[in-house]
């Protein structure tokens, strides 16, 4: 970036309050334009213009204002919104939360410079996401399939193996056609502890994917206002890789809870009226500007698929963070603490999980003609099992009807053989075979979601498949 000396402004700051810097306006400056606030100590702090009038402007700094003085502070005007310089060299690199190279290497050779807020994809120009991604995880592939261009968050809790699951998905994800297409992984760590970020890097390295990965790390020790920018930088990079370079990009963002906490903090410092649990009323719209940046565009080869991870405060799915996320994303994969304690990996709580775009990517012509019915029937049977467990908890297994006891057994098998995968990644065929086998333990009269044909083909001749 060239330094424009005429756009420096010294001795203009009149008031500093939290992250807000109030200054006299001596140059033409527009709303949301990026500025650099340079303290007497010479440290550069990124900021943007939050409000302007004829004589004054309000600057929101994205880093701590600690150490700034009224007299010695200079402001440099960039003349455009916050941008990110991108080029093919971003893969294999590590950046901080605001897109500065962190790995000691040279800066990235820029081919293009784009606003980090991204442009809104015209809904009419979106291509329908329908390419089934095989993740190797039965509960996802069979019951809550992921498709390219989807945003499917993992709802987790403290101490659950969400990061391991995300890496497993990232490393295994492939199309069933076996076609190899250029792909990339963009990882955004928002407010993550150093050791977690490092563990992530290591497992990607071990999986041989680091060369296809761009890492954006906003560590727990970095400023909270920067946390708001980290996913935007990461998604801008993802969009570049997808729509300019034509890659299929998987974006993993962890942890969205830290993002929302930062949003609350910044909103409070602006003196805005809080909504539920102190989070700002615009949190839905703000989250949407991130999540909606997943998708595919007609006539362009790449795609952006998002797997944001969030830890539900106190495992509460009705908390505003998971609640608003669930309203925006196309489903959710929920991790279950009970299963985790029982040693089940991946501990996916099947009932509260959902994939909205699954219907477009499975079935005849996509995966397998009987895939939808199988998924439906497994869901119905497992939901019934939960009802039976509740009943058994009160009246005991003796008070159950023989059919109900079969469901209890089905549930046990379902969790230990279908959800749990001690044997490692499975192909969709392998996952479906386990599913059919479990259904064989139930009476045919209870399988209303399957057609007579399906019952005949999959459930009546157990020997034929072995």
């Amino acid at each position, binding site marked *: 970036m060239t330094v424009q000396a005429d756009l420096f402004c010294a001795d203009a700051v009149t008031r500093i309050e939290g992250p807000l810097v109030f200054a006299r306006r001596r140059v033409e400056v527009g709303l949301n334009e990026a500025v650099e606030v340079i303290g007497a100590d010479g440290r550069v702090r990124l900021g943007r213009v939050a409000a302007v009038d004829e004589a004054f402007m309000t600057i929101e700094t994205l880093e701590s204002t600690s150490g700034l003085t009224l007299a010695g502070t200079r402001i440099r005007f960039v003349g455009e919104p916050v941008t990110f310089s991108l080029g093919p060299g971003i893969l294999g690199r590590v950046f901080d939360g605001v897109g500065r190279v962190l790995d000691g290497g040279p800066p990235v050779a820029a081919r293009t410079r784009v606003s980090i807020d991204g442009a*809104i994809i015209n809904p009419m120009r979106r291509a329908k996401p329908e390419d089934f991604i095989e993740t190797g995880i039965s509960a996802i592939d069979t019951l809550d399939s992921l498709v390219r261009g989807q945003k499917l968050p993992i709802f987790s809790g403290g101490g659950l193996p969400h990061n391991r699951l995300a890496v497993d998905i990232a490393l295994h994800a492939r199309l069933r056609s076996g076609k190899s297409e250029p792909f990339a992984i963009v990882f955004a760590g928002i407010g993550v502890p150093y050791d977690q970020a490092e563990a992530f890097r290591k497992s990607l390295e071990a999986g041989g994917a680091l060369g296809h990965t761009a890492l954006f790390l906003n560590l727990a020790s970095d400023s909270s206002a920067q946390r708001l920018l980290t996913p935007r930088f990461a998604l801008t990079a993802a969009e570049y890789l997808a729509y300019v370079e034509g890659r299929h990009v998987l974006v993993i963002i962890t942890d969205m809870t830290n993002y929302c906490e930062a949003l609350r903090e910044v909103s409070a410092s602006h003196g805005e009226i809080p909504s539920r649990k102190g989070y700002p009323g615009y949190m839905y719209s703000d989250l949407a500007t991130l999540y909606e940046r997943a998708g595919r565009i007609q006539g362009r080869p790449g795609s952006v698929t998002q797997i944001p991870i969030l830890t539900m405060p106190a495992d509460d799915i009705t908390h505003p963070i998971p609640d608003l996320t*669930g309203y925006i994303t196309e489903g959710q994969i929920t991790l279950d603490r009970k299963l985790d304690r029982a040693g089940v990996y991946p501990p996916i709580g099947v009932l509260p999980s959902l994939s909205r775009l699954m219907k477009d990517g499975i079935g005849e012509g996509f995966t397998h003609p009987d895939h939808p019915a199988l998924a439906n029937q497994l869901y119905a049977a497992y939901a019934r099992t939960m009802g039976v467990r509740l009943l058994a908890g009160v009246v005991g297994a003796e008070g159950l009807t023989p059919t109900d006891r079969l469901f209890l057994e089905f549930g046990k098998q379902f969790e230990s053989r279908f959800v749990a995968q001690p044997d490692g990644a499975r192909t969709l065929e392998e996952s479906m075979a386990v599913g059919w086998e479990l259904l064989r333990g139930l009476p045919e009269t209870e399988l209303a979601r399957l057609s007579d044909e399906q019952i005949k083909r999959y459930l009546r001749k157990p020997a034929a498949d072995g």
Partner: protein
Amino acid sequence: MNEAAIRWISGPVLRAVTRDPFRIHEAVHVGAKGVLGEVIRLHGEEITVQLFEDGTGLKPGDPVQGQEAPLSVRLGPGLLGNIFDGLLRSLSGEGRDFLLPGRFLLPAGRFHLTPLVEPGRILKGGDPFAEARLAPDAHAAQLCLVPPDRAGEVVTMAGRGEYADDEPVLTLRDGQGRNLQVAMSHSWPVRVPRPVAKRLPVDPPLLTGQRILDCLFPVARGGKAMVPGGFGTGKTVLLETIAKWCDAEVIIYLGCGERGNEMAGVLDEFPRLEDPKTGRPLMERMVVIANTSNMPVAAREASVYTGITVAEYFRDQGLRVALMADSTSRWAEALREVSGRLGELPGEGGYPAYLSTRLAEFYERAARVTTLSGKNGSLTVMGAVSPPSSDFSEPVTIHTKRYVRNFWALDRKRAQARFYPAIDPISSYSEDADVLALWWSKQGAPAWAAQRRRFLTLLEEQTRLERMARILGKDALPPGQRLTLLCAELINDGFLRQSAFSVKDRYASPRKQIRMMGLLTRFMERAEAAVGSGVAVERIAALPILRRLQRMGEDIAEEEYERFDALEQMLEADFGALSGPSGEEKPS
């Protein structure tokens, strides 16, 4: 043109100084790009403007140009089959992969006009004066209406031919002797309801093809319904399904603050689906208004009014119109956000105190009416509500509930078991049902009201018994009650569950619904009689007919009515066999 200069700007709100007579709610263009906005407050020489788009880069001194009219949309023959943003700007067009703020001019569509009036005719507001077609030989024609606020004697009327939709084709001379120019399209302010001659009581049902709606919780033409449900309970799929199969002539699908990929799904799927009645692509009878969640919030607020104004325009042509709004909660949140920025005192849940009034105004625009030109038209409104934390006691849900007549509550438990539509039969209700019983009896189902009542009571009873069974164990219930549970499960599985993705099951005609209801009622009668005469419930549960009834929706297509006859015979035979030799054993 009114002009002002920006004095202060922050986020989507700006203040500007002017000496010109700006009006409240006047539409404005701001800055060089012409970012759209609306005047929301006047104070001395200062106006406050709310921007509908991103104002990045605007600065003090930039011009604000008033349009001297409130926020208006152009209504005309170019609407059907197209997709628009919340301010009714077309989203189609090549190369526009991303949306950028600012004015983009709508190229006028060209249509073939067939005049319906001759010079000398006296026309009043709302009267049709011509037909417009996409091609000279196209079957589908749309009526062109005199704007409701214009009237007069026809001076000139353009002849048959092709015209741009904004080109004057009709000249009227009004009472004061002034000449008024009228084009195929006209402009109407979105926040003003279009006038009608008379409101009529809601009557025949708006058939949705969904059994749980048509038979248990029907909505009438001109009625209003709300669909509250937490995330993942199937609001969007339900509204889309209704949009596909309901018997309205025009569908306005309003995606308000929802997902872009879902809009892509709609746009991909609807042009390929056929209208079961006309055989034409469903998209031809639709207008899609898409304001996805990442589009600016203030435009989301306006999109609801845009949608209902477009719907009223088609109603005024004497058509049966249905509007699906997904989701009205996002609209309420937009109201809250804008209100917060203006520093208004927050009410319940942070929403402005006028939330309830706005909701009432919106739902009141649903009606069955006699139009200004004397035709009958109807506008049915169905709004999704997304309560935070699935808590139905939050302000948007409770206020909406006061103004709608039909409540279709979605239930998370059902959705988790992939039981769709996941409408909870216990807490849902329909105030239109009593009126509609007459229509069903005219269709050859005089028992509809009684059967409906019976289904509802049975489902209510099921909830009670299941609670009891949880304490006592199912085996401890007497046979009569165990049968009730069996029948309730059968109604759930065989009637209320309906797959939106199965070609045979996604739409059920009234005739199919009547047959299914009849068969299930007959099953209950025979089963009750059998249990009364001492047959064990387990033997009824083992009857082959049970599985056939559970699956009849998915197994039997429309027009295969003889298969229902076969089912009926099977039912009678199965129960006949029960009372045979082995049926006489006494229960222990």
